[in-house]
């Protein structure tokens, strides 16, 4: 049992980060804190992908003349790393759009608190 936990420590770490991020996104009242949660959530997935590529006793996926190109078990899998480069770019774009929205919300309502925002929205609905 202990071996199971220790052997998968990267996944447990990733799972903890993911829960933390999801909790922040859903339960935090401040919009910027929600976005912090979102970033943690996305980073946990990036860590997950990177963890899947690792192999015991393998080295970085750059051709080493001493090892040669025939034995793939001597190199870690480079594909998840390249996939995650794309995912990082997507994450940056998402957070950029999200902050643009936050700025425009703040300009219109002068608050970033979800509960105050909901009250203001309700008032607007009533006056309409």
């Amino acid at each position, binding site marked *: 049992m202990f071996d199971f936990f220790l052997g998968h420590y990267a996944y447990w770490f990733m799972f903890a980060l*993911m829960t933390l991020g*999801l909790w922040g996104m859903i339960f935090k009242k401040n*919009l910027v804190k*929600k976005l912090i949660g*979102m970033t943690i959530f996305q980073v946990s997935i990036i860590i997950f992908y990177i963890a*899947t590529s690792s192999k015991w006793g393998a080295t970085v996926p750059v051709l080493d003349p001493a090892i040669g190109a025939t034995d793939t078990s001597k190199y870690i899998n480079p594909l998840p790393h390249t996939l995650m480069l794309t995912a990082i770019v*997507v994450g940056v774009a998402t957070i950029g759009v999200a902050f643009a929205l936050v700025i*425009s919300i703040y300009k*219109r309502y002068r608050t970033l608190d979800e509960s105050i925002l909901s009250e203001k929205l309700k008032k607007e609905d009533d006056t309409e």
Partner: protein
Amino acid sequence: MTLSNTPALIPLIFLGTAALIPIIASRKNWIAFPFSLLASLISVFISIYNILLVLQKGSVRYFFGGWAPPIGIEYVLDPFSAFIVLVINSIAFLVLIHSKRVVENEHPDRRTPYYAVVMLMLCGFNGIVLTGDFFNLYVFLEISSLALYGMIAIGEKKSPIAAFRYLIMGTIGASFYLLGTGFLFMATGSLNMADIKMILPNIYQEHTVIVGLILMVIGMAIKMAMFPLHGWLPDSYTYAPSSTAALVAPTGTKIGAYVIIRILFFIFGVSFVSKMLPLTQVLGWLAAIGIIYGSIMAIAQKEMKRMLAYSSIAQVGYIGLGIGLANPLGLIGAVLHVMNHALMKACLFLVAGNFRTKLGHSNINRFTDSIRKQMPWTTAAFAVASLSMVGLPPTVGFFSKWYLALGTIKNSNWIFLAVILISSLLNAVYFFRILEKIYLRPPDAEKDRTEKIKKSEAYPSMLVPTIILAIAILVIGLLNAFIVKGIIQKIIPGGMG
């Protein structure tokens, strides 16, 4: 035009147009609209060519950069993707014609960026449908979602909040999908859909496969606004500009449905998702609850756009129900309903846009019988679309419900059959509520004499797409046997039913 590269052409046209619009239209705002309309028209023609090609020759595969799968990324054009691409692009073309006046009316100074993000969104949608690679699908999903957040936030005062809430939900959905892809990659070592389909039968029992599948379906169910995960939809449709709502409501949720059907029935196979895992059963029950919930919430709404948004949740439920049945008739019903609901919802949102432009509001309580004199054609189109939503023959709405009902009977699932019948009744309640206000008021002779109502119909550029859609609802309803036999029956994957 060489034959093999037609699958890649449509996303590339939209991507190129999206990049060109900010450059070309930076000085002259008005160029953005004709330019994007042209791109959309070309893609409609290519989609028609594609579907004829597929019906003749079977599926077409295009390898990007000449790298053969599973190493490279491939685009696959089979009957299913060709059909969905045709539906999306034709609806988008009609809604784009309509959007000219609406955009000029609602946010005239932001025309250039608006049409640029519209093109990006369509690029994403077409890419999702055409790609044969799970990670590429994620990238297109994020392209379309990011464009969508911008399109929603461009609207009225509350729209940034709706867009922000959708962004949080949408990112959770996309991240779940990405995580599911990771699990599947761990188990199979591949990202290519056809390759994974070959590998899967040997490793069905592994936990990583099951977890990956469930994460992917949850992620896509958020995008599809499946019942317990629909929270983002009503606000974003209500506060988005009319043109955005009309563009997204018919196409956006269908993309999620398409991916779920693709993953469940084409890659994992019916027997795995319905017999080894009770996944389709869960989807079916959630969809059934969602149908009833969406219909009841729609009855309670005072704003027409909001009512249509809740009705969308119910209608997406029909597609989910068809998926949940996991038999050929259910799948025909689901795929047919993707097209039918796109037609009906586009028509209804265009009508709402016409009302907002001409009357200045779309509040149901303020509708009066004068509307039918003021805008006879728009109200006629509304009547056709609502009858179709209720499911009266010979409109399209009847036939998808017919196939779904046949599917429930085949599975002897009487509760689902009851849900379809009850929800039709509920649809009738919330649409006849409006029809009654517009058409069924007893004539008030006194008022008619004193109050001369001037006929002021919506602009031709708004009216023509609305009427084309209304006519399409009737004509495609009559031709449905032809479409089902010609295209949809070819979609059904082997090993089903």
